[in-house]
């Protein structure tokens, strides 16, 4: 801003002597304006983020080493007691396995299907906007509503999906009884809501692939399928990783769908589909009222997510620097981390 200030003060210096005092004042005011304004403008973000983002995270560590009840408040310092308590709970480990299982079931098919849909949308379509909007509809349905609706579709008795299975001669599936089946049902809800969204991200990446690559491939005699696997997929690699990372961060914090999958919302009688965040919620606001133990869980999940995010970041950077990725994908990899998790 130095340049601007100089230009601004240039006419002042040429002004008559008797006006110099007043101008001096406004000039000084202008300089302060230039110096302080940048900080003033970024301060709302930093102040609010410190209070509502950083402080709670740091304080979680403090709460986790104390006896701390929902109603009674802070108790004694107990060191690592809360952590060892939680780690010795089979429910904690079960919730962690459930979370990873649901995450895998929702991320892998989702990426494959989203790329397929993106490839369809990337064709030279009539009324392209209509189709793009069409696949995005599920995004505006709240996860709790999605869960209620799919809860009916996946009902153990007289659910539509089981009826169809019976109709084609298969056995109905215990969507609320069998552990893996419940994970599939919950993963389906996640996929339903995010499939179109991710397809559009992939579509944007596909449209950035230089068309001459395809032209060269056509000359070399490659068919459509071959083009897709040899050009499209490698070219959108970075975007694939970006989508995987965002779904990792969101997936490891899955809560809404599980909370609504049955009336009790705590992952079923045997915690068959209880996820780690639901476990955290139950520790704090369920029967135990133990904010200390819940904080220990939060802190461990936090570390897990950060570690996975960091590994993902390293992998992404590796791939970006190995060439072939567009400017956009590199920028996205910076954005990547966890914006979905912050939701």
């Amino acid at each position, binding site marked *: 801003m130095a340049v601007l200030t100089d230009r601004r003060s240039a006419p002042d210096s040429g002004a008559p002597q008797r006006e110099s005092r007043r101008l001096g004042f406004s000039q000084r005011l202008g300089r302060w304006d230039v110096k302080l304004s940048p900080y003033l403008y970024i301060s709302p973000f930093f102040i609010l983020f410190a209070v509502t983002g950083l402080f709670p995270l740091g*304080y979680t560590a403090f709460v986790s080493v104390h006896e701390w009840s929902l109603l009674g408040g802070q108790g004694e310092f107990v060191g690592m007691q809360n952590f060892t308590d939680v780690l010795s709970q089979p429910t904690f480990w079960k919730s962690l396995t459930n979370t990873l299982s649901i995450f895998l079931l929702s991320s892998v098919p989702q990426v494959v299907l989203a790329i397929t849909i993106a490839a369809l949308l990337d064709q030279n379509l009539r009324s392209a906007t209509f189709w793009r909007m069409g696949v995005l509809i599920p995004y505006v349905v709240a996860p709790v509503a*999605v869960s209620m609706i799919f809860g009916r579709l996946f009902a153990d008795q007289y659910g539509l999906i089981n009826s169809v299975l019976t109709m084609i001669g298969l056995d109905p599936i215990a969507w609320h009884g069998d552990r893996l089946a419940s994970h599939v049902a919950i993963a389906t809800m996640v996929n339903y809501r995010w499939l179109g969204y991710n397809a559009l991200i992939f579509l944007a990446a596909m449209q950035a692939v230089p*068309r001459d690559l395809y032209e060269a491939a056509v000359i070399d005699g490659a068919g459509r399928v071959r083009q897709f696997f040899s050009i499209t997929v490698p070219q959108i690699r970075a975007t694939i990783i970006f989508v995987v990372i965002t779904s990792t961060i969101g997936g490891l914090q899955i809560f*809404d769908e599980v909370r609504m999958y049955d009336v009790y919302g705590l992952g079923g009688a045997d915690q068959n589909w209880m996820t780690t965040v639901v476990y955290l919620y139950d520790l704090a606001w369920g029967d135990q009222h133990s*904010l200390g133990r819940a904080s220990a869980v939060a802190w461990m999940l936090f570390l897990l997510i950060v570690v996975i995010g960091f590994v993902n970041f390293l992998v992404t950077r590796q791939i970006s620097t190995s060439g072939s990725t567009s400017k956009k994908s590199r920028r996205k990899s910076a954005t990547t981390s966890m914006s979905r998790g912050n939701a």
Partner: protein
Amino acid sequence: MSSVAVTAQTAGEGAARAAARRRTRKASGGANRRAGWIVYALLGIVLLISVFPLYFTLLLGSSDPVEISQNAVPQWLPDLSLFTQFRTVIESTQINFWLALTNSLIIAVVVSLAVVLFSTLAGFSFAKLRFRGRGPLLVFVIATMAVPTQLGVIPMYILMSDLGWIGKLQAVIVPVLVSAFGVFWMTQYLSESLPYELIEAARVDGASMIRTFWSIALPAARPAAAMLGLFTFVQQWTNFFWPSIVLSSENPTLPLVVKSLQSNYFVDYSLVMGGVFLVTLPLLVIFAFVGKQLVAGIMQGAVKG
């Protein structure tokens, strides 16, 4: 501002080039053949899967609870009894529907406006003003996007409870007034779409910094700000986790209404499903108007909300 330029600084050079190429291709016509019927058929199936669950909700909302418990699809067309369910939900004293609608609206609007304002302000500063520590601070903002702040719920709850905000809307609004992604997004946009000459011209004319922001930067930021606002709105409208902790069914938001429908009327599926549809309807209506912008926003790199 040409759309190519917009694409260039939001989605990268490659996307802009592709867009430009598309346009020329369309103009020259027929270089790339039209998609075949099989593509439309497959997309039709995808569309059907997207819409069917919502239609199914309407069907269940129109039928009898007894029928639902005996038949997967009690009827194939929705009928007027749907409105009976709507009415029951709206008039129920346990549900507080109008209050929930108002609360959701207040939260989504206030948060969207705040996020847009604070992000544009910070984005203007980061993109166009020079000050000591700018680089490291911007890196810090980007790094905070990698922090799952949702996991700070317990101290946040303690804080809200100390402030006496439990059950009040400010408990939901205040923690999400700023967004690291928003700051990053606006910084990106403004650094490429707002020419220094415009700012200098305003300064030469004697405009103060805030005046420059208000009359130069803010109007220039409008397209990106609109998208940021839109995504924040949807995100807040559908948000459940934190509101379910600090709000109760006496002062709910719409997603909490779904929860109380489930716990109060769980045997009456037609009522529950009618209510679920009613709760989903406002955003579907909004989507009909802004769906195009949402699509464009995602394709230009807006990140999951």
